[in-house]
């Protein structure tokens, strides 16, 4: 199997706080990797460091054989890493279609003059892109909402639209930050199974943060468990479930809370 993402000894400090401490992971192409851990464990920070929003304090990130450690966010995205946000970040004044349309901008390879002079090439590319976007929204089950304002969609649809938008840049790797946040166990199970279908359809590799343990266990080939920025375990669902450290730090805590 081919390695698609290779993170080695990644560290990120905010002042005195070590949000990520020596994090390493390798993702094989076509797999779903789970990232779990209690609140404040550093999961979102890992996403933000991979995507270039934060500069790492140390370590390297390699994507499809290329070093992307200090790349800017837009460069990381152009390399083929799509993502969603824990706190939804849609273009909320714009329509559902426009949200996806925007993300397809790399397929609209006409120049400024073609756009201003409305050359043939412009019309053709735009039409093609629009059809692709509508097709994508159909797959995500949003095709009856094309002209609705993204910000006024119900919460679950907003989450799906964020996934559609990320898919519109035809990524190789998709980072999903709590895609099922706020959903109950059944809903999140359904969503995650749907994500698994998308993975097959679009030949994706997925790195996913998700709180519902059973959901994570059922879909992820491998799982990394974080606590206070440190990796306390990595392995298959079974290995994680039986890991003593994990039970103490995470599962135990959650069981007690429930």
């Amino acid at each position, binding site marked *: 199997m081919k390695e698609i993402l290779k993170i080695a000894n990644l560290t990120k400090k905010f002042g005195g706080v070590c949000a990520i401490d020596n994090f390493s992971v390798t993702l094989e192409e076509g797999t779903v990797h789970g990232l779990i851990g209690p609140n404040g464990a550093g999961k979102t920070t890992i996403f933000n460091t991979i995507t270039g929003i934060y500069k790492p304090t140390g370590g390297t990130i390699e994507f499809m054989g290329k070093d992307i450690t200090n790349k*800017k966010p*837009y460069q990381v995205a152009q390399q083929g890493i799509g993502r969603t946000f824990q706190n939804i970040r849609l273009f909320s004044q714009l329509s559902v279609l*426009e949200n996806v349309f925007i993300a397809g901008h790399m397929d609209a390879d006409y120049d*400024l003059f073609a756009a201003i002079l409305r050359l043939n090439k412009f019309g053709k590319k735009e039409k093609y892109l629009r059809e692709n976007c509508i097709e994508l929204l159909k797959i995500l089950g949003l095709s009856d909402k094309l002209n609705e304002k993204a910000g006024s969609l119900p919460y679950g649809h907003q989450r799906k639209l964020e996934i559609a938008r990320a898919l*519109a840049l035809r990524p190789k790797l998709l980072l999903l930050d709590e895609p099922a946040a706020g959903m109950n166990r059944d809903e999140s199970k359904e969503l995650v199974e749907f994500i698994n279908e998308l993975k097959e359809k679009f030949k994706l590799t997925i790195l996913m943060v998700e709180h519902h343990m059973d959901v994570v266990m059922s879909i992820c080939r491998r799982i990394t468990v974080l606590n206070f920025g440190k990796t306390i375990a990595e392995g298959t669902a079974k290995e994680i479930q039986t890991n003593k450290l994990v039970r103490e730090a995470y599962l135990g805590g959650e069981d007690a809370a429930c």
Partner: protein
Amino acid sequence: MSGYVEGVIILIGINIIAVLGVSILTGFTRLFSFGNAGFMAIGAYASAILTTKFNMPFLISLLGGMLMAALISLALGKLTLGLKGDYFLITTLGFGECTRVLIEFLDPITGGARGYAGIPQKTTLLIVLISVALAITVARNLLNSKYGRNLKAIREQEIAADAVGIDTARFKQLSFTVSAIYAGWAGALFAHYYMFITPAMFNLDKSSELTITVVIGGLGSLTGSVIATTVLTLLPEVLRSVANYRMLFYGIAVVLIITLRPNGLMGYKELSASWIKNLPIQVRRMFRCRKEVA
């Protein structure tokens, strides 16, 4: 047509071009500028100098004024566009005032505070009408393409724009430069209509007026900008007696708009046939809302 009416239409046209530039920058990219009168001044003086000192044909002077504004916006944008919103706004304010003072200071070339006289009148009604049509078409085509969509993405959610691979720095610069070119264009037309320009014509009041017009017309709406410019240019002409209180009037209008109709007249909507058709429904809905609130 009487000379007076023609003059008013020309003034509206020139203002529309300058406001459209700010509309692209502020309404579609959410970069607030209080320095676009500076770019107008650059367009006005550069074109006037090209016409009078270098005997250039009007078209070349016009393009020269636009080019000069574009170049300066590129340099300025490199320095300031990386700054966060409020800081960027303050630098545009500083730029506008610096430009004015610099023009005063360069007395031998610009005539200083006394102004620059002897510019031949080349701007005609026809030229203004063609310019306005061109400015609107270019703005509309630009905004309804991936370029415009990328600007709107930056306006709506910059982090997400980055995350879908938009080089936000580059597109902010594009927006800034287009707005400078429009301002330079308006400035050059202005200089060749009034034949006499002074630095004070392009002061902070003028910059504020442009931005306020965009806010009143509604962010994210080209038609809103055009309508607001027309109304706000006409009003002082119609109500001559209050013309001196223009800025006061603008201030009150902006406070009213922001409190009563935060999206401006046409926020995020364009005037179109279907919009007009739906108008009665919208008005009814608005009144119903009012009643419910009451």
